[in-house]
């Protein structure tokens, strides 16, 4: 694997209003990597993701996405940069008034000059990639949770983005569906070489897909661990990291127990 960084986060501080959630965080994501952001509830995982996909402007610091600094772009340029990424939202965020095929075709129609017929062939290929052949004319409300996620993934991949972001891909899915989605993520990463950034706290998912992780912490408002999840599980000295990977409540402080699962 080439070790060329595709996302560089430098001294990033984000938050809402006066509250700082993450304080001067820096890390790199390399090209083609399966990168997982994890941490307990309320540690700023989702905030970090939102900052990386340009939904909330950072207080300070830089996010360099494939050579472009997100924080200094104006609206039009930002949208151009964002075309390099795809996002699978937690609830899949499919448009309820459109069929699955129309959802996937929307970005393709907007940004490529392909004729209609070719677009429908392409949409069929995309849906085939996520094993949703035959569901073109279904509406999102007619799909199950796992199918919605896969359709959302097909839409996120519509323009073959360099980087795919996943917000809690296994949230709300049963273990089997969730494992299938993990397999699909691995498969797409291998066959297409897309860089994937996943926010999750599902331990099994983490061990199944992650090549490298960063773990965020609520108290230090920053990264407390970085590296291979299996190595961290077995060798980390940090008590929070240990507890997280071994799925144990914080014993000395029962009031806050549960936040690490």
């Amino acid at each position, binding site marked *: 694997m080439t070790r060329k960084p595709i996302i560089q986060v430098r001294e990033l501080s984000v938050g809402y209003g006066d509250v700082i959630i993450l304080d001067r965080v820096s890390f790199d994501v390399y090209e083609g990597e399966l990168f997982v952001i994890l941490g307990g509830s309320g540690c700023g995982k989702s905030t970090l993701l939102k900052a990386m996909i340009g939904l909330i402007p950072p207080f300070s610091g830089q996010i360099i996405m494939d050579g472009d600094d997100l924080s200094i772009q104006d609206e039009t340029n930002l949208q151009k940069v964002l075309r390099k990424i795809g996002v699978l939202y937690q609830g899949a965020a499919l448009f*309820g008034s459109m069929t699955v095929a129309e959802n996937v075709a929307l970005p393709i129609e907007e940004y490529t000059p392909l004729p209609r017929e*070719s677009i429908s062939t392409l949409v069929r*290929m995309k849906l085939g990639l996520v094993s949703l*052949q035959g569901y073109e*004319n279904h509406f999102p409300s007619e799909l199950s949770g796992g199918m919605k996620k896969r359709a959302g993934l097909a839409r996120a991949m519509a*323009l*073959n983005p*360099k980087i795919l972001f996943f917000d809690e891909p296994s949230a709300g899915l049963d273990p089997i569906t969730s494992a299938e989605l993990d397999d699909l993520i691995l498969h797409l990463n291998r*066959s297409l070489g*897309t860089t994937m950034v996943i926010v999750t706290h599902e331990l099994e998912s983490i061990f199944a897909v992650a090549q490298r992780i960063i773990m965020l912490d609520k108290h230090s408002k920053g990264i407390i661990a970085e590296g291979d999840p299996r190595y961290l599980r077995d060798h980390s000295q940090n008590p929070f990291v240990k507890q997280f990977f071994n799925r144990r409540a914080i014993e000395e402080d029962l009031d806050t127990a549960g936040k690490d699962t």
Partner: protein
Amino acid sequence: MKIPETPTKAQYEISEAPQGAVILRICGNMDASNAGPMIQTLSARLREYAISSLTVDLEGVDYLDDFGALVLIELRKMATHGRAAFHIIHASDKIKDLLSILDFDSLDEQLPIQKKSSPSVFVHIGEATIQLVSDMKYVLSFIGSIIISLVHVCSKPRSLRKNDTLLYMQRVGVEGLPIVALISFLMGLIMAFMSSVQLQQFGANIYVASLVSLAMTRELGPIITAIIVAGRSGSAFAAEIGTMKISEEVDALFTMGFNPVLFLAVPKLIAAVIMVPILTLFSDLFAIMGGLLVGVSMLDLTVNSYIAQTIKTLSLFDVFWGVLKSGIFAALITLIGCLRGFQVRGGAASVGQATTSAVVSSIFMIILSDSIFSVILRYWG
């Protein structure tokens, strides 16, 4: 798979062997940035040849994604359409892998996607009738549950959510007052102005005061106020309950043992029924002030004579009648707004429909019930 910032150019070269065997060599990238133009130019170029077999040589292709595969599919379609053979040669292992993942060989053969058949007119009429009947049932059961909740509130006043009721009284009444006052004032002004043109010819300037006060207190005051409240608050009720419905908050209330109607609709209903009549009184007052302004400034009436004429014209019954009507309008607006909110199913579009329908049906019901009131008054009063 990536989209380069600047479209990468793919090179192609077409050579023709004897008997129409055409070889197409492609070099460079085949991706999202150039698939569209490539399909166009290649199909235009290949049309010049009488093809008996088309061979695509991918030796020089550095990168191919599913958009590239689409180009190949279009080429294959063209070839098979002219009954020519189609081959791909010198594809790298990576490209072969991708094509097999995409199910390249069988993509053409897939059946056209089944369209849902559109039912006939009779089916439509039948469905609409069934829908109408079930809607009516729903409306009846909704009104029933409102009545039960009201009875419950009367017997156990503690079960009314007082803070919510006060909040909605503020939203419907206090916050609605400025716009109601402004529009009523202007209405009074316009009415006085329009009627003065006619009445002046008979020297009956003083009757402008009678006309404005009577028309406003009996008819226009309640109607204008109700229409403004329908637009401001009826829509808000529908949108609020509808959004709660799709985010499962209504279900949460139900499972927590609350009666959603008692919890959500009754405070709104009580707030509206108290506040809209008060708003109507303000509306009457401001309209009379509008008329007064025109009377004093343009018709040489004194303030005293205008007010005296207004008092002489109006009976307490007129004011009471208008206020009574506005109370009924308020109940209609709230019931329709909440009903539409509870009827929301599905997603965001449904909330929009409910809001629109709440306002439209409220205004319709306001006008309809007002005409019924007029008829009642005519034969009974």
